[in-house]
């Protein structure tokens, strides 16, 4: 599904990712945890195709394709979805209109027929009822005036409608109270399937109480320094990230 190999990324002359390697199989949920500044958000952005990142070494292969060679919209149409940490407010663009245009753009890319407004409305109603989202969000401008929780739920709603193959959740838990967190996690769990993989990027362990990962990675200083099962997240919760620093310090010092 996704293979990141020895990825080095530079932003504004600073090295952020320094040899990150990672492999995600279909249907798996991988969690990426790490302290602030470890490069977590950079990973999400680089996978989705944000400009301003310079790949100096390494590769990203997604379903056999060179992901880094594709435009952001091509990645989306190929099934890559980034749930933004900070969903962008777009005044004047209606949420439903935007999502239908996005879905149809993806379908066009894949050679599938367009969905008309009736068909789309039906699809939306079905997704909404499953996700327990109020349909008033549909008629507002994209993310404008949404609370923090509503913005994150809107991301999950888009995820549900666009049905990607690889979903990257970039700190989707940040700024959420426990009820909002549960709703978001529930939405993600409903989307889990043998064909769909998730990369859950988070600072805190608590999201992983609700979205059970298959694999947990610790990202520190631009590299995966530790990988393990769900128990690794609990260990981090107990010991904090200073424990990680201790683990990478010898390697750094010895280099």
């Amino acid at each position, binding site marked *: 599904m996704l293979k990141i190999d020895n990825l080095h990324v530079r932003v504004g002359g600073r090295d952020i990712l320094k040899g990150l390697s990672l492999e995600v199989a279909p249907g798996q949920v991988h969690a990426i945890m790490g302290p602030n500044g470890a490069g977590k958000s950079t990973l999400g952005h680089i996978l*989705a*195709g*944000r*400009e301003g990142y310079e790949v100096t070494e390494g590769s990203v292969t997604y379903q056999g394709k060179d992901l880094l060679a594709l*435009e*952001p*919209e091509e*990645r*989306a*149409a190929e099934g890559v*979805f*980034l749930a*933004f940490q900070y*969903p*962008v407010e*777009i*005044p*004047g*663009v209606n949420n439903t209109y*935007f*999502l239908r*245009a*996005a*879905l149809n*753009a*993806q379908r066009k*890319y894949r050679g599938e027929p367009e969905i008309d407004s009736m068909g789309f409305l039906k699809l939306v109603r079905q997704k909404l009822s499953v996700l327990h989202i109020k349909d008033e969000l549909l008629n507002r*401008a994209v993310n404008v005036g949404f609370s923090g929780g509503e913005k994150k739920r809107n991301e999950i709603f*888009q995820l549900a409608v*666009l049905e990607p193959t690889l979903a990257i959740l970039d700190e989707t838990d940040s700024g959420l109270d426990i009820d909002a967190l549960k709703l978001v996690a529930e939405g993600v769990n409903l989307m889990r399937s043998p064909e769909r993989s998730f990369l859950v990027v988070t600072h805190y362990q608590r999201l992983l109480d609700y979205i059970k990962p298959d694999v947990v990675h610790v990202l520190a200083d631009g590299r995966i320094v530790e990988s393990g099962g769900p128990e690794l997240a609990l260990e981090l919760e107990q010991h904090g990230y200073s424990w990680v620093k201790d683990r990478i310090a010898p390697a750094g010092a010895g280099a």
Partner: protein
Amino acid sequence: MSAESATAPATLAEAFAARGLDLPTTRQERWRYTNLRALAARRFEAPAARVDVDLKVIADIPAPRLVIANGRYAPALSDLHGLPEGLRVRLLSEVRRDAPDEAAAWRATDATGPDAAFQQWNGALADEGFVLDVEAGTRVTTPLHLVVLGVEDRAERAFHLRHRIALGAGASLTLVTHHVGIGAHRHLLNTVLQVELGHGAELTQARLQREADGATLIQRTQATLGANAHYRRLDLELGGALSRHELDVTLAGDGAKLDANGVLLADGRRHLDTRLGIAHRGRDTRCELTWRGIARDRARAVFHGGILIAEGADGSNAALSNKNLLLDDGAEIDTQPVLVIHADDVQAAHGATVGRLDDAALFYLRARGLPLAEATAMLTAAFLREPLAVLANEALEATLAAALDARLAGATTQDAT
């Protein structure tokens, strides 16, 4: 003198000189960004006696509707069904014939001096226009459509229109003014609009300017608002070769409010110049002004937002926002907010920016699958749609948004033909 020179009209510069007027030049501060030199050498004929226009060109404009085509009232195109009681509709030509003193009195407030030469020219020549009076306390909810057509014929012509809208105390009215170009004409339309709002009166007015690519429009709007009067206004400048609009509003009475928004869509070789002159004179008066502009190709958008809070206009509140997108190297945007305050306890904010589309928003749309061109179009449309909300009328906003979208989608201003 040959027969030819006897019938050929004078150049615009000569026509002005014949009345003791000078065309404004870029040496005048108020005309600095709008050069009339090419216009000065052009020759415009007077309106023809009659104009033939097919009704279908305005089929999308509902009744009640009043139409002027090439400077002449067009009864066959107008439809006064559903005109509410309490709204009196006259033509300037009628008033000049039946009550010449009344018509003459309207010119008393006209500006003088070299900056207002077009207005003086209009004062001398205006022979048609819409004269609307709403009785005190009458609330008119059905929008009235005022249509001014520029129609291609064998000559280039100059038209002088003067409209007047007066609302009595507590009256309300919703108006939509359409400037529509039929065919590839190059006429000059010189318009003065006077607005007088009585105590607590409410006027909502949208102006949709989609004139022909060769048209020249010079318009001056001067409004005076009584105490607690409320003027909502939207100007969509989507067409024409040169369009200059001076919007002068005096918030005379205490508590008067102005919400005026606008869109300048400058593409091709269009030159769109909007100049606001808002004067707060009453206490606790408020204005909120939101203009959005884009310039692409070799077009130019000019915006001047002048706000004066006069001595004694204490407690006034003024907010001006002018944001612009500059989309091509050959295009130009000049924006200038000017705030002058002579009163106390005033809140005033103004901002003007010229920038590009928001990269974060563009990426967000692309990350959901929208190709770059589609994402750009979606953001541009949204950017320009923002001012429409000023009308507080969903049906009207939807109609105008559709006109804006159609224009952005590449439809020319000649669609009506």
